[in-house]
């Protein structure tokens, strides 16, 4: 079933990195629980598993994430957006990895566990901030 006659929505392929993610995903914001009816407790926010950044770097490499996103997750206009530093919230991150709406291939829990994702997310969070552009003479 290689080609579908039906019409599907999706994002454009050749755009600058930041626009590939689905519009509902906002960089840097934590997931917000929806308002519950009066008298009822709001649904529990799924716990974000603690991740190991060092292991995450190994997984980021062995799973080939760096191919499209760069070894420092700096992104490329040709292949994939910047992911770090300050990655999107884990819930949105995991959701997109499992079911990407753009050109990224899917990575289900069969091949990348939730624990692995948490480690990778921790690695992304651990990336240092870049230097200020004004401080780089070559970029003046």
């Amino acid at each position, binding site marked *: *079933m*290689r*080609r*579908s006659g*039906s*019409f*599907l*929505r*999706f*994002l*454009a*392929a*050749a*755009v*600058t990195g930041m*626009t590939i993610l689905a519009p509902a995903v906002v960089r840097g914001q934590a997931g917000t629980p929806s308002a519950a009816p009066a008298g009822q407790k709001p649904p529990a926010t799924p716990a974000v598993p603690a991740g190991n950044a060092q292991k995450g770097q190994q997984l980021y490499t*062995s*799973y*080939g994430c*760096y*191919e*499209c996103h*760069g*070894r*420092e997750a*700096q*992104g*490329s*206009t*040709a*292949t994939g957006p*910047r992911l770090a530093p300050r990655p999107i919230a884990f819930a949105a991150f995991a959701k997109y990895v499992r079911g990407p709406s*753009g*050109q990224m*291939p*899917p*990575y*289900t829990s*069969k*091949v*990348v566990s939730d624990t692995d994702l948490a480690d990778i997310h921790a690695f992304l969070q651990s990336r240092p901030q*870049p*230097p*200020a*552009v004004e401080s*780089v003479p*070559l*970029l003046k």
Partner: protein
Amino acid sequence: MSEKVSVDRRSFLKSAAVTGAAAFVSSAGAMTAQQAAPSGPATAPTLPPEADPPGGVDVLTTDRPGGDFMVDVIKTLNIDYVASNPGSSFRGLHECIVNYGDNKSPEFLTCCHEESSVAMAQGYFKIEGKPMAVLCHGTVGLQHAAMAIYNAYCDRVPVYILAGNSIDATMRRPGVEWDHSVQDAGALIRDFTKWDDLPVSLPHFAESAVRAYKIAMTPPMMPVLIVIDGGLQEDPISPEVKARLRIPKLTLTTPPQGDAGAVAEAARLLVSAANPVIVADRAARTPAGMKYLVELAETLQAPVVDQGGRMNFPSRHPLNHSDGGRALIASADVILGLELSDFWGTVTAFRDSLVRSSRSIIEPGTKLISIAVGDLFIKANYQDFQRYPEVDIAMAADAEATLPALVEAVKRRINADRRRVLDERGRKLAEARQKTFDRARADATYAWDASPISTARLSAELWPHIRNENWSLVSEITGISRWPMRLWNFDQYHHFIGGSGGAGVGYGAPASVGAALANRKYGRLSVSIQNDGDFMYAPGVWWTAAHHQIPLLAVMHNNRAYHQEVMHIQRMAGRHNRGITRAAIGTTIENPNVDYAKIAQGMGVHAEGPITDPKDLGPAFKRALEVVKRGEPALVDVVTQPR
């Protein structure tokens, strides 16, 4: 011609065979006599007397082989170079070029692979604007050259190919000459060449050679092939043929311009549009094309998306919106496509997923105007023509040739009121352009100090060393995320030459050498950012660069893999829910890592590396450029991020 009886190749070879056979029989007789008398002191063998030549003539030389006339014809075409890996099927013409032709116009360029010969010609044309010749075997040579010919065909570049062959089966030397002979040499590449012929006489050669050049240089420009029979090259020119020899006058075709009515309608749409966008791919055939496009864009104050098939539009011009162009296209009400190789893909988003799908990214009612000479000439077999685009105006015309008329038509329609509106649009576009440039600079800081070195850092480190020179980037940029185009200032036609055309890997190294050769006489500094996987196809072209003293700074983008293919395998693995750690199998170039500096040094090229610390880049570039400015090639091997 000397006063001897004219003997053609056929008679000479016949007599030589008889003589050789007679000598063999005589020698065998002498050996038998010695064996029959084993006793007695050994004596020196007595050579048999030379056999008398058979009745007829025994002419061993000629002062005027047919190949000399071929050189006369080629010289009228003003071809500066012929790139070739030597071969016996064209030994006649080869010798005539280097001796009769004094190895000038054309000068013989020694190549180590026919793919290099053709790709050098492709890069050369995109700087010089006229073809280079290629000389190769009609069988194994064309087979080697085929991918490069396909690239040039897709890239709309004329390459003038001469291929040796031996048509008369009774005249072929046993063995190799048969392996190197073919009934129809052109059949192998006919689907991706524009024209081919097999001349059967020297007058026929003259006419076909001139015609081939004219056809190659008529837009859409593409490679052409003339098959040159060995007999025609080597046989003496008979008096009968000599009396018929002449070289036809070459008259180049004027490129077709767009229909006047269509141009007027296009102007009307563009001037009245609220959000016009100009998209250019192979629009600028010459420096004039860039000038006309700037004039059109500035007259309309319309953004230009340069798709990079050629150097179409200055990179820092306020109207250059190649970065983020997709969003502008999506909101456009009129889109002008100039020599787009894929208009459908320009206005459509396609998802490469388990279930492939596509959707238009433009609003219904958006008007599409196409000016593309490809509409005049499409072949069916190879599918480089892409999906069928549904446009509103389709001008089967050369974009560069049409632009002057379009500019004038646009100017006639703009009154003072409209001028104010357009200028306001231009002001906003200029502001947006500055923001895009600032964003690119900020993006470049990510992974700034990383090792492997980021392609942004590599590009930023190289720029200060060339910005004040008369520089020319003679390589593709998609593999390095277009960083040079985002950070450097491209404003001359020779600053960029586009890409391979057919996406056949192996184009990069030889094309950069060919373009650097063209740049040499203008004193330009040629720079290439060379993909490592591409280089591995036919590395011998760097020896060619050293041997012919072609100055070129090659910076190896050494990311140690065919990364495009790694990503494809990853995509398959993710889709199939398995083995996502195994995409490196069959796709990477490591273990061991290739030492490109050693390879280059082994071919006489100054080289250093591999460099893994970005702080070492600047000094390495400085040292390499000192070599290049002395007129030699140099390599700096840099271990880089994938993209």
